[in-house]
């Protein structure tokens, strides 16, 4: 009860402060025609009421969060919010888990036919762009989520993949399927090239250097007209080929969809395998405590480089798909905003959590696409969501599940 009273008092205080701040803007108006001052007192009432309510709601929700936290401590459960606990039991139930997976796979396979017609395959194209970002987010999840190495220039590797395909197909007429692995390898090489000089860096310094790397890549692409086509980019990039068959528009879109879907599945498979292996554990240990990790016999240089290289590999790979799907690339597709967006997907989803990152990537790509009506408020909503997430669920949508190992028996099974 006393808490309630304090909250109320605070809310009134905040409302008064807001009234004071907005008084000259929203209440006083100088009417220059009649040379007189209008006092719009009704605005003052509105501001006071609305801010008081918002402030009250805000304080109550903060208190609710603290209560949740206390409860989770007494339960000796990690971040132990209720949804998380139920999700953990769900994931521990392997039969149910498998059924859900099969259901999701069927739905994903049938999706392009369900939502498209011969003329209208807009939804398929939207989904292809979203899935491209799912692969990107899963790739960055290796570097940032598992190994804890902040990378603010991740989009550069995506650009490397895209330009690799564009240039190779222009110059040597190489096909999509030849270039797909080449794009991945090119991304990986750039990952290594970035990884070497920054082995010793940590935290803020790492962020600055990777940010610089991303910017340099974009500037080189923009200004080296002779090779990369400058700001105009490269057009007429061939679509993925399927045994020289001639495909109509819808079939092309669906074909791209299946290619990227296969890549998503491959990424998930590889990430899960790595995560539950000696390599993945070394990454996580590096994230948790670098000195202890090294003292326990983990080679820091090899572990960091492998995390960078593998993260960059997926970006390069999916860059090829991006170039092929769009027929056209220019440096504007590879801005810092995109790097930040991918990082936001990883953070929102929950660092290191594969399922969480997929959900966050789909949400952050699909919602703006279908909520075009609110396009102007997109960044506003995005910012608000981020702030709220960090306050109420800093560990992400789906925080990293603990994995149980069976001793003495065969196999522990792969799980996120």
């Amino acid at each position, binding site marked *: 009860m006393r808490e309630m009273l304090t909250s109320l008092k605070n809310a009134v205080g905040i409302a008064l402060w807001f009234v004071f701040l907005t008084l000259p803007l929203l209440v006083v108006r100088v009417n220059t025609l009649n040379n007189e001052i209008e006092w719009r007192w009704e605005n003052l009432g509105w501001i006071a009421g609305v801010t008081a309510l918002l402030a009250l709601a805000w304080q109550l929700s903060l208190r609710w969060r603290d209560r949740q936290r206390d409860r989770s401590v007494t339960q000796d459960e990690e971040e132990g919010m209720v949804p998380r606990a139920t999700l953990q039991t769900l994931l521990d139930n392997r039969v149910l888990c498998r059924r859900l997976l099969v259901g999701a796979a069927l739905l994903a396979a049938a999706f392009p036919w369900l939502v498209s017609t011969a003329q209208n395959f807009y939804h398929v194209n939207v989904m292809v762009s979203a899935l491209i970002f799912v692969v990107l987010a899963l790739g960055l999840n290796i570097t940032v989520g598992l190994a804890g190495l902040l990378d603010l220039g991740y989009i550069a590797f995506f650009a490397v993949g895209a330009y690799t395909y564009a240039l190779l197909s222009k110059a040597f007429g190489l096909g999509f399927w030849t270039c797909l692995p080449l794009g991945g390898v090119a991304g990986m090489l750039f990952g290594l090239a970035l990884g070497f000089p920054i082995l010793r860096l940590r935290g803020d310094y790492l962020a600055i250097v990777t940010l610089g790397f991303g910017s340099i890549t974009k500037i080189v692409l923009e200004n080296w007209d002779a090779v990369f086509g400058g700001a105009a980019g490269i057009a007429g990039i061939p679509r993925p080929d399927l045994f020289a068959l001639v495909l109509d528009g819808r079939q092309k879109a669906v074909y791209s969809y299946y290619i990227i879907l296969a890549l998503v599945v491959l990424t998930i498979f590889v990430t899960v395998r790595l995560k539950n292996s*000696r*390599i993945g*554990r070394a990454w996580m240990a590096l994230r948790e405590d670098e000195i202890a990790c090294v003292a326990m016999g983990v080679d820091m240089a090899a572990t960091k480089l*492998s995390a960078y290289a593998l993260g960059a590999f997926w970006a390069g790979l999916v860059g090829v798909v991006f170039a092929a799907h769009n027929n056209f690339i220019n440096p504007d597709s590879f801005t810092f905003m995109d790097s930040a967006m991918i990082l936001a997907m990883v953070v929102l989803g929950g660092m290191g959590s594969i399922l969480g990152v997929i959900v966050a990537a789909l949400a952050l790509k699909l919602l703006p696409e279908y909520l075009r009506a609110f396009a102007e408020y997109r960044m506003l909503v995005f910012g608000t969501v981020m702030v709220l997430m960090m306050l109420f669920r800093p560990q992400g949508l789906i925080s*990293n599940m603990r994995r149980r190992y069976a*001793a003495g028996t065969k196999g522990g099974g792969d799980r996120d």
Partner: protein
Amino acid sequence: MTEQAKLLDVSGLTMDFGGLRAIDSVNLEIRTGEIVALIGPNGAGKTTFFNCVTGIYTPTAGDVSICPPGGKPLRINGLKPNRITALGMARTFQNIRLFPGMTVLENVMIGRHCRTKASIVDAIVRGPATAREEQETVDTSYCLLERVGLADAADDFARNLSYGAQRRLEIARALATEPFLLLLDEPAAGMNPQETRELDELIVRIRDEERLAILLIEHDMKLVMNISDRIYVMEYGKEIATGTPEEIKGNPRVIEAYLGEDAHA
């Protein structure tokens, strides 16, 4: 102790931080099966000594060499910490450094990293050899947890363990690297008397079962006097005394270092 091979031989070890000489030509040796304690007042340079020996710092001068049982002596100054661990010297930390967001079992499994081989490709393909290695890692780690009495907590996050349990987990993690020499940095710090007694037994048991040598830094004099075969005393970066627990107890220099100059008047 009969004449046995020196597992660790440190001579003239010196470490400068800028103008500060943190360690001033310290000599120390450990032989098979010994429990050796390194004691001294706070700031004497004990932990710096550990960091020099385990490769976290590169010593300014002096020699650190180790000789695995049945192997040849090897100078390890300037080697990376992970190389030194792979050679067979493991440590724990004074301010506990576990991997808090990983489970107890996974913490120990990290210790197996340098004794397993699976590459990235192996991990993705997961052939029979890799699966077997993975299962061995799990089994060995479970065994170690049972040894330190933490098997029931295997699936808990390391950060949820009690203080004493975290210290024991650090020991299990270090043991997972299959060391022949174990360095414990204040293993009893923050433990209650009951936990300290259990730790006492654990350390002796590990020594006997694993046939390894142990070097420990400790402030709990009862523990030190109980289990050590020999003791080295440091003060202001210098080694001021060495000997058996009885000799150290009676050494006026040591009493002075711990209690101040007036104490032995």
